[in-house]
């Protein structure tokens, strides 16, 4: 049985905001996330896309609806099963500031009870993969934002997850660092052929990294459209100059423009 897809079905989420008025974050969201693909979710800020990630990741319980992890054997209908291995990369990095780079990267393995030597080895190779060799003994406070996020990325991939969640991973970084890391991530993703779910508010990023882009509406978050991105892989930064890229951008921006205005007015 192979992991086939994540199926989000009729997901709604409400919570009480600080003034005790109920807020609807997500309203009847249904999305399929196929395995082995990068699905980008783009939407105006406050559309509940991060909440959607937390729910899929099992860190927040939805008010309504469900998330199923489907497994198939190549033919016939897929059946739902236990969640596969998952890891998340966060916008605010969320590195433990009192741990060195290597101890941060090995944190998940340590929680699993892996032996010191083995987790050290794995952490070192993950650190190499994100080009941070030589910084193993640094503390997060000694690193730049881009380096911190590469630690975050290494901490995720060292768990060899079946699904990698990226919650606005480059949102806190400056433009050049973001560009560089996007290219690096694109390479990493293509090499590993993992299932990736990328939350972002950057349309370029959603297209550049994604096989599919899910466009969400302003609060309450709903799915406005799902687009397939047929740009050839491997992609480099140059892909953004292609005509198809521009057309996709215009289409998505057209869908988002009104939503962004709505989210600013509400």
């Amino acid at each position, binding site marked *: 049985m192979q992991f086939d897809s994540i199926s989000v079905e009729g997901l709604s989420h409400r919570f009480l905001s600080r003034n005790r008025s109920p807020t609807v974050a997500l309203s009847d969201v249904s999305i399929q996330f196929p395995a082995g693909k990068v699905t980008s979710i783009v939407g105006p800020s406050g559309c509940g896309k991060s909440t959607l990630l*937390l729910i899929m*990741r099992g*860190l927040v319980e939805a008010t309504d609806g469900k998330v199923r992890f489907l497994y198939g054997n190549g033919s016939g209908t897929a059946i739902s099963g236990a969640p596969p291995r*998952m*890891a*998340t990369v*966060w916008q*605010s990095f*969320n*590195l*433990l*500031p*009192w*741990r060195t780079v290597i101890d941060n990267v090995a*944190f*998940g393995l*340590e*929680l*699993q009870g892996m032996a010191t030597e083995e987790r050290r080895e794995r952490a070192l190779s993950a650190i190499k993969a994100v*080009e*941070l*060799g*030589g*910084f193993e003994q*640094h*503390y997060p*406070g*000694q*690193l*730049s934002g881009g*380096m911190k996020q590469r630690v975050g990325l290494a*901490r995720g991939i060292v*768990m060899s997850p079946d699904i990698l969640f990226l919650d606005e991973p480059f949102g806190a970084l400056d433009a050049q660092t973001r560009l*560089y890391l996007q290219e690096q991530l694109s390479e990493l993703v293509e090499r590993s052929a993992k299932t990736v779910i990328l939350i972002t508010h950057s349309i370029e990023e959603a297209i550049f990294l994604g096989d599919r882009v899910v466009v969400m509406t302003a609060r309450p978050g709903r799915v406005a459209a799902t687009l397939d991105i047929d740009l050839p892989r491997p992609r480099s930064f140059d892909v953004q100059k292609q005509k198809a890229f521009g057309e996709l951008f215009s289409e998505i921006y057209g869908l988002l423009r009104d939503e962004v205005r709505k989210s600013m007015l509400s």
Partner: protein
Amino acid sequence: MTQVERSAEVEAETSKSMQKAGDRLRDDTWWYGPVAISLFLVAWEACVRFGNVPEIFLPRPSLVVVTLYELFAYKQLAYDLMLTLYRIFGGFVLAAVVGIGLGLLMGMSRRIYAVCDIFIAAIYPVPKIALLPLLVIWLGTGNIFQIALSALGCIFPILINTIIGVRQCDEGLILAARDLGATPMQIQRKVVLPAAVPAIFGGLRLALGISIILVVAAEMQTARYGLGAKLQLAGQVLETGQVFAILLLLAIMGIALTKAQDRIGSVVDRWRAK
């Protein structure tokens, strides 16, 4: 070497040179304090010597040092010092164990917090020295009484700082740990507790100062041995030299303890260093 490695190296170099600059900044001024206090002592010595101030009113610093030596040599002041330190640290350690333990529980559980909070609110504002009569009735005037009083004074800063430290733990760190599969127990041990360490350490610093104050004050009231008791005794018989000698010893003790705390603090907080 790729561009990234190169820029990473430049970054590392920059942070190293900044660190060196920081060291130099600290090294530059290390002698200010000792020199200032030396000048002060010389001025004091000169004023008393040439100003004909009676010794019973203000003894010369050199005489104070000699008196301190004599107290150690002939009056077994070392015993008093040990006794006082024992009381100070006895109460401090007791308060640290109970305060950190209870603080962690209160910070983590809303129910435990709700139960304990009312007691803390009631006891915290009471001046601890006002509990002296009651504690003497219950515990007498021995070491147990001294330790209990010191612990009572120490426990609140430790407890309150621990609660704050636990509560201030970044939600994101807990989310990240849960994402990596941490159990609730692991989250407390590997995320919440270490995140609270700086706040707890701040509480411990405050507490040690309070412990010194309370123990010396209580010794002056009730004890026969201990620095506070000897200080009171010397004052009653107008041995001003001895009074100053013991005050000097208390000051030296204060400096030693503070510096020791700084050392421990910089080890605990080494990840904060840039």
